[in-house]
């Protein structure tokens, strides 16, 4: 793997730890409502669909579709790998369950809206950042 680019890391809490550390086991995890099955993201202690407090981390397949993508050309911080692809991906398990992420392991300009992608994790100091790569790669 090439030299990792700088990333701002998240502040971990009991509410978000499953999301940022699930990658240690290769799992992309979201909070999920026990009674109605809704995935809750960003994490919150109450299900937004049925208001149940019975929400707990659950792994998804890691499959997703690119909903939008931009190639960032600007060095907001010192950046060795311009341009890079920032995408919004929609998680396969639930329409509207979306993440901003990066699509990696491909030519940034080849990333297209509608492209199937799958999760890969980039470890950083106790945080596993969920990135995505083309599902056919």
């Amino acid at each position: 793997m090439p030299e990792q680019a700088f990333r701002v890391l998240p502040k971990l809490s009991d509410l978000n730890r499953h999301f940022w550390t699930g990658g240690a086991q290769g799992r992309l995890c979201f909070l999920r409502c026990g009674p109605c099955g809704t995935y809750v993201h960003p994490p919150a202690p109450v299900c937004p669909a049925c208001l149940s407090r019975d929400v707990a981390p659950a792994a998804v397949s890691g499959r997703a579709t690119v909903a939008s993508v931009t190639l960032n050309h600007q060095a907001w911080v010192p950046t060795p790998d311009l341009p890079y692809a920032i995408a919004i991906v929609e998680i396969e398990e639930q329409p509207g369950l979306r993440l901003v992420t990066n699509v990696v392991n491909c030519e940034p300009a080849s990333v297209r809206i509608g492209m199937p992608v799958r999760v890969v994790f980039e470890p950083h100091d106790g945080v596993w950042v969920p990135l995505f790569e083309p599902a056919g790669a």
Partner: protein
Amino acid sequence: MKEFLERRACITGIGQSDVGRRLGRDPLALTLDACLAAIADAGLTRDRIDGLATYPGGFAGAQGFSGAGVAEVHDALRLRLDWFSGGPEVPGQLGAVVNACAAVACGLASHVLCFRSVWEATAQGTGGRAGIGMGGAEGAGSFRASGPLEYLLPFRAYSAANWVALLAQRHFHEFGTTREQMAWIALNARRNAGGNPKAIYREPLSLDDYLAARTISTPLCLYDCDIPVDGATAVIVSRRDEARGLRRPPLGVEAVGTALRGRPSWDNFDDLTTMALRDAGAMLWERTDLRPRDVDVAELYDGFSFLAMAWLEALGFCGRGESGPFVAGGRRIALDGEIPLNTPGGQLSAGRLHGFGFLHEACVQLWGEGGARQVAGSPRVAVAAAGGGPLGGCMLLVRD
């Protein structure tokens, strides 16, 4: 019948400081220049100002994002306030002004001084434009993201340019919008800036210049991004019955739009081609019998050119997804077009006064003081709108 109480409010005066790149002046001094100008413009004196409102308040965000908060202006002018409000969690930058309208409508105050002050150009110094919420360059190593930035910064989406770019790209995808179309927001702004002596960039900009500009975050190029400046803007919101006998004909607040009916999120909003402003725009028309065709001039937030397109759709000047063809060629949005847009050059050419510049110019136009950029025909109805992403608010003004 529902009563729309914002109609008890009106705008009676406006003021603006010098506006420029790296003025090197104290931000409170700029703020007070604008505030004192607005008080005098209304024909008021400071002892009659009993309300104060600002966005985003004394807010420790990016350097220069806020030039002064409520307390600093309150104390500097030794105001005697019955009501005040300042903060970032409002429906866009103009949310502060809507708060003031609500305050006067409730009788909490008679004359509210509303201001927005920025000194981003001086604060950024000789460096480039920074990302948002990085905690300053010195903190970049140890800073940890939380709150709304937690799911943006770790993915190297450091700037609103990235977040807006993602929505613009989705709009391009769904509706076939092109850079050649979007360019006209920037080109129209520059054309109008030629008539604004205070605009930062006034030299002509061509479509070729635009298309050759360096990319920031596809599909946005340099000219799709506004210009950080130093400057402050103020308006006076008065209660209708307190506005009699003042210097100017009051500009009535016909309706406001403050809704956010979807999620407060860039990536998890229900429709990735629009934003909070969709709901704010819809709400505005729910509160008046006027229609988009009645509007004589539109001052719509263009912190990024795509946002002005989204506002054109949200306010019904064109259909959903139709803003590309609508602005293409720049005729409909020209000073003599069907809906003159961003008459002083917008934030793209006149500088980022961050929302309040649009309201200021709506007043300038309705009072007929636009000089070389004045819309002909004595405009009577103007809309001012500000914000993007999860922030959006708008106001419809009518001259008596």
